[in-house]
């Protein structure tokens, strides 16, 4: 007999409540590592008990009660030293009584939690894992599965991340205004990383796997709700939504990559594109334009072209030029070269790529060769196109992209009749 499982609605509710419950626990017990473990156990308990016994009247209160009990149990079974540490904070009666109050501070605390999980002292991989568990409300098993590593490895990564936070002496409080901007940048970087990881997982059987791109968008929506006036927050959310809108069209039935030029645009998610564009438009006039807004604007230009031939390439050139001024990043120049080639012809783009190659920072990066292959093909220099496609195929670390590049090279060779 199979166990009853949580309906998707309740699952979403649980995941939304996870950071609020953790915030409430933190306010009482302060110890991040222990609170986070207790909340994780409460979430697992809910996913087992709710399908059997029905959803409690106050899901949030229920979770706080269970998490508090776990906390007490854990501390009781812990060493005497830790017991002394916590004894002041532990009072079950008080915990149960308080379980249904305090919601006004929740929202802020979710942001504080994000700042904590995305602390600069953590490696990106650790910050990603911790964020997905503590703020995303995912189980360790789900996160491990999403990254194709054993559950024990993921558990260890998360526990080490919490240890790093503990030793860094980071306090659970809102960062000061100046530090806040910098820390928010790190949060956005981590969420963007999660979003991009979702792309890797989008190929192959994924029925049982958490969709990391959707998860990143969900978390990003939360951040946008908490910081509605931050233009870069809105910009990154728009970028994610506008990119994700093309998801169904960007790979074929066997997981093969379909380039923008060949995508069936009727499969792009119209509603998502409208939402992304509206988000982006709303940031206009809200202070300095940042890199996420510009990248979102590029995505919007692509999304709004009815056919590939309708793409407003001069607009894309202008956007990348702005982005280049903000960021001395050869990858931006690479992207601008593609757009320039579409406006002025491949020779102009290839000339820019020579400068990128001479710069040296992209040495060994397959994207430079892939773009050169593409522009040489446009220019009709088939020999050079094949050479660069193959060089890129040898260096990419993505199977679908390698298959695409090898197929491109073979296609050009066949056109040559060799």
């Amino acid at each position: 007999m199979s166990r009853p499982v949580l309906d998707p609605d309740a699952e979403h509710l649980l995941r939304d409540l996870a950071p609020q419950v953790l915030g409430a626990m933190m306010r009482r017990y302060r110890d991040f590592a222990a609170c986070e473990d207790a909340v994780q156990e409460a979430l697992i308990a809910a996913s087992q008990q709710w399908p059997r016994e029905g959803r409690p009247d106050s899901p949030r209160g229920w979770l706080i009660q269970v998490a508090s009990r776990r906390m007490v149990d854990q501390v009781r079974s812990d060493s005497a030293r830790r017991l002394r540490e916590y004894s002041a904070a532990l009072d079950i009666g008080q915990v149960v009584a308080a379980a249904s109050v305090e919601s006004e501070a929740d929202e802020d605390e979710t942001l504080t939690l994000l700042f904590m999980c995305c602390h600069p002292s953590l490696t990106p991989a650790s910050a990603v894992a911790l964020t997905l568990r503590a703020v995303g409300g995912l189980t360790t098993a789900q996160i491990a599965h999403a990254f194709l590593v054993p559950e024990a490895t993921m558990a260890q990564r998360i526990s080490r991340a919490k240890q790093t936070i503990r030793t860094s002496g980071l306090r659970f409080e809102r960062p000061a205004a100046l530090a806040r901007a910098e820390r928010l940048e790190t949060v956005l970087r981590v969420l963007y990383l999660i979003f991009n990881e979702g792309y890797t997982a989008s190929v192959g059987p994924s029925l049982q796997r958490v969709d990391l791109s959707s998860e990143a968008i969900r978390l990003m929506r939360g951040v946008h709700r908490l910081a509605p006036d931050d233009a870069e927050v809105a910009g990154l959310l728009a970028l994610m939504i506008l990119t994700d809108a093309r998801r169904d069209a960007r790979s074929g039935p066997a997981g093969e990559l379909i380039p923008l030029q060949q995508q069936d645009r009727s499969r792009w998610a119209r509603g998502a594109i409208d939402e992304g564009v509206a988000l982006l438009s709303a940031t206009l006039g809200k202070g300095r334009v940042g890199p996420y807004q510009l990248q979102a604007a590029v995505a919007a230009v692509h999304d709004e072209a009815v056919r590939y031939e309708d793409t407003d390439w001069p607009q894309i050139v202008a956007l990348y030029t702005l982005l280049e001024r903000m960021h001395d990043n050869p990858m931006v120049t690479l992207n601008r070269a593609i757009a320039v080639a579409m406006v002025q012809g491949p020779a102009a783009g290839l000339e820019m790529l020579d400068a990128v190659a001479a710069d040296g920072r992209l040495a060994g990066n397959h994207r430079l060769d892939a773009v050169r292959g593409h522009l040489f093909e446009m220019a009709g220099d088939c020999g050079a196109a094949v050479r660069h496609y193959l060089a890129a195929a040898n260096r990419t670390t993505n199977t679908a992209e390698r298959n695409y590049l090898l197929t491109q090279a073979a296609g050009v060779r066949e056109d040559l009749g060799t």
Partner: protein
Amino acid sequence: MKYMLMMNTPGNGPYQIGNWPKQDIQAHIRHMIALNKTLREAGEFVAAEGLTGPDQARLVRAGKDGAPITDGVFPESKEFLAGYWIVDVDSPARAYQIAAEASVAPGPGGAPLNMAIEVREVMSGIPPDML
């Protein structure tokens, strides 16, 4: 990023663990177990397996009817894969460091073997958005 670390040794090379004195074998095994423990604790461990010896290896090809045709045993001098690790690390440098730790596993007399470990990145990168 994930890397595969492959421990290749010649069949007649120093990795003839069966002929080593007991304490050397034990020291070698301890080294490998300790390395795996370190990887697990660091949250970097994905998989590690040792393979059976080359005398049990077969090269398999399909015959005309698609049925397997096996070939073996191989000469002792042939290089073979003794075992492998798959690790999930933050940088290539860290993968090389782990490979070096595997390489210095003690051999006969406790001296480091300094085996060659082949390090290859597993295809797990993010596909490009704009093709």
